[in-house]
């Protein structure tokens, strides 16, 4: 296991996706097992459960299916987070459910991912659910995608089957926004091409899954140009020692901030200069995503939670009319005129649904403009009007300032995920 201290490692977050029973949890179990990240007591527990259930193999999915009802039903219901590390990289895995009923949990796991790992069962090829998940990953702008053609052991490790699915997916993917795609034939159950190269598929010359995960380049996926600093918390010690201290705590959402920079505070539009940037008890010379820092300004301008610090000539335009793609996550459909609570960066407001422009058919990518509502697990383009202006960017430019959640005001439940096309 880890020989380099975790202090020097970088981080890759990835999420599984695909239809129910395509082998996502089994694959994660295999990845953990073959990378020697499973502890003896964990493996023993899983072996014992597999045996008592009468299986003739060890059900590796039990390593991640941690809830009682998941083990009873043999499916994943909610995201499981698992961790492992190789000498240079730490991985945070979100193993998500394939069942359509739990799509919201898949979206939860995928929203923070750098890489999406879509599985298909080689016997079945692409299904509606694998397409839906690929569409969601592309809407979420997960920058890297791997299609793992699984259960190759059940199709005699046939190159032809692999090529057919590869071609079918590639054709579908051209209609999506997928900047980086890798297609790998595997057997999660037997381990082919997961960590160890398969001897059953000499025709495949690409990387194993593990090799790809270790080497995929993620550092360049952040925006280091457009300064975006949503103010999260005003730090005011009110102690004798730090009597006049006033700092703005937050996580850098974009760009590089430096002391001396001329900045604008939105929505007020007041300008000032960065006096200092604090990271705990040190002053630092630069802050960039995703650092959590405290920014001090030279002037005593009025700044509070929900405001945003940006550059004078590069700032988002405050807007109350929001055009966004929405993934709807509750049984009661989304309808025009509906009012919801909205949370965007550190800003909370209310939103009115003005119009549902279309519903996206996840199979054909056809835009159904006749639709009057969005049902559970459906995706569509929606116009919102908010009670206060949002300081937003298109999601394609910034995943932090371009995203929001919708909350049902009566139940308090998160019911929608939004990705902004534009504000005006």
């Amino acid at each position, binding site marked *: 296991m880890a020989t380099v201290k975790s202090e020097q490692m970088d981080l890759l977050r990835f999420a599984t996706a695909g239809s129910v029973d395509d082998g996502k949890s089994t694959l994660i179990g295999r990845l953990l097992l073959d990378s020697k990240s499973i502890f003896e007591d964990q493996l023993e527990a899983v072996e014992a459960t597999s045996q008592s259930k009468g299986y003739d193999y060890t059900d590796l999915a039990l390593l991640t299916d941690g809830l009682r009802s998941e083990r009873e039903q043999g499916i994943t219901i909610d995201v499981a987070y698992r961790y492992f590390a190789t000498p240079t990289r730490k991985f945070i895995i979100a193993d998500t459910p394939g069942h359509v009923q739990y799509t919201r949990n898949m979206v939860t796991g995928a929203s923070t991912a750098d890489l999406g790992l879509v599985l298909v069962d080689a016997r079945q090829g692409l299904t509606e659910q694998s397409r839906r998940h690929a569409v969601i990953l592309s809407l979420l702008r997960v920058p890297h995608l791997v299609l793992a053609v699984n259960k190759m052991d059940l199709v005699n490790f046939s190159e032809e089957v692999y090529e057919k699915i590869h071609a079918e997916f590639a054709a579908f993917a051209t209609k999506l926004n997928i900047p980086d795609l890798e297609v790998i034939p595997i057997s999660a159950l037997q381990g082919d091409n997961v960590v160890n190269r398969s001897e059953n598929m000499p025709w495949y010359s690409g990387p194993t899954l593990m090799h790809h995960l270790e080497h995929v380049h993620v550092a360049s996926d952040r925006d280091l140009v457009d300064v975006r600093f949503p103010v999260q*918390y005003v730090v005011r010690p009110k102690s004798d020692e730090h009597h006049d201290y006033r700092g703005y705590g937050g996580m850098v959402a974009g760009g590089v901030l430096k002391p001396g920079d001329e900045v604008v505070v939105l929505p007020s539009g007041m300008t000032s200069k960065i006096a200092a940037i604090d990271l705990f008890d040190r002053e*630092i010379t630069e802050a960039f995503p995703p650092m959590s820092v405290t920014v001090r300004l030279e002037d005593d301008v009025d700044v509070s939670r929900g405001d945003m610090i940006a550059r004078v000539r590069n700032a988002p335009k405050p807007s109350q009319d929001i055009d966004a793609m929405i993934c709807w996550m509750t049984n009661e459909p989304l309808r025009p005129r509906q009012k919801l609570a909205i949370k965007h960066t550190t800003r909370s407001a209310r939103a009115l649904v003005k119009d549902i422009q279309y519903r996206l058919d996840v199979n054909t990518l056809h835009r159904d403009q006749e639709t009057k509502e969005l049902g559970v697990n459906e995706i569509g383009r929606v116009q919102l009007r908010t009670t206060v202006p949002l300081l937003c960017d298109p999601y394609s430019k910034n995943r932090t300032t371009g995203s929001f959640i919708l909350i049902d005001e009566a139940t308090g439940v998160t019911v929608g995920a939004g990705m902004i096309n534009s504000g005006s």
Partner: protein
Amino acid sequence: MTQTHTDYRLSQLDQLEAESIHIFREVAAEFEKPVLMFSGGKDSIVMMRLAEKAFYPAKIPFPVLQVDTGYDFPEVLSTRDNWVNRLGVRLIVASVEDAIRDGIVIDDGKTSRNRLQIGTLLNALEEGGFTAAFGGGRRDEEKARAKERVYSHRDEFGQWDPKMQRPELWSLYNGRLHEGEHMRIFPISNWTELDIWDYIGREGIEIPTIYFSHQRRVFKRDGMLLSESEHNPLRSGETVEERTIRFRTVGDLTLTGCVESTASTIDEIIDEVAVARVTERGATRGDDRFSEAAMEDRKKEGYF
């Protein structure tokens, strides 16, 4: 001033720290009455450190709550006091003994102190009117924890419903509550045991001495090495001997086992953890060994 990051890369440990600080600030900004559940163990000490950083140079803007089982290691209590005094935060102690005396929980002689903590904790949260309680749970600890959100919603009875968790997207946390409900917040969800140790080493912060190798009089029970103590009466056939050990987790001393170890520095502990073949809970926690779903069941009832 520190060096400039020419390539603008943040190590994974710095990314974890940034994420946790973000969570602390978000809760402090959005909840009326947060509280930090502090056990004195390494995870809650790392939480304290992160909270310290999140609000510096201001004080941590919420109190600290400890559930005292009456069976805690004295070394842990003294570390707790040092932390609380240094940071100048208010400490609330909820005592299981008191809860038994007041009839809030019932000690039938069979239920472990660990389980009696649940009622004691829920009562303390209710009495204090706390709407958000930070916990040091990590997802790598146990398979039910691996499923839990950072903001984990609890109903009026303090219960967790694993099949009805709210979606949790990006870093947009939803803290909406109804009267009587509260939120458990897990700011170090994504840290592993190794990350915790690397961080403690890097920050040079105080942890209880029982984490380091020392001589202790111990005896074997259910395959675990337990500390000799007045709270741990020997059963027939059990014999005490002195061994060189350390603790991997700290909790109720009647249930928390130790491991034989000569690791006496953070670096030696890190080397040991990096090659460990058994999970920290599997090795040393009696409370998780009873059934496959022991943790899930306790969590549903309102455990940490």
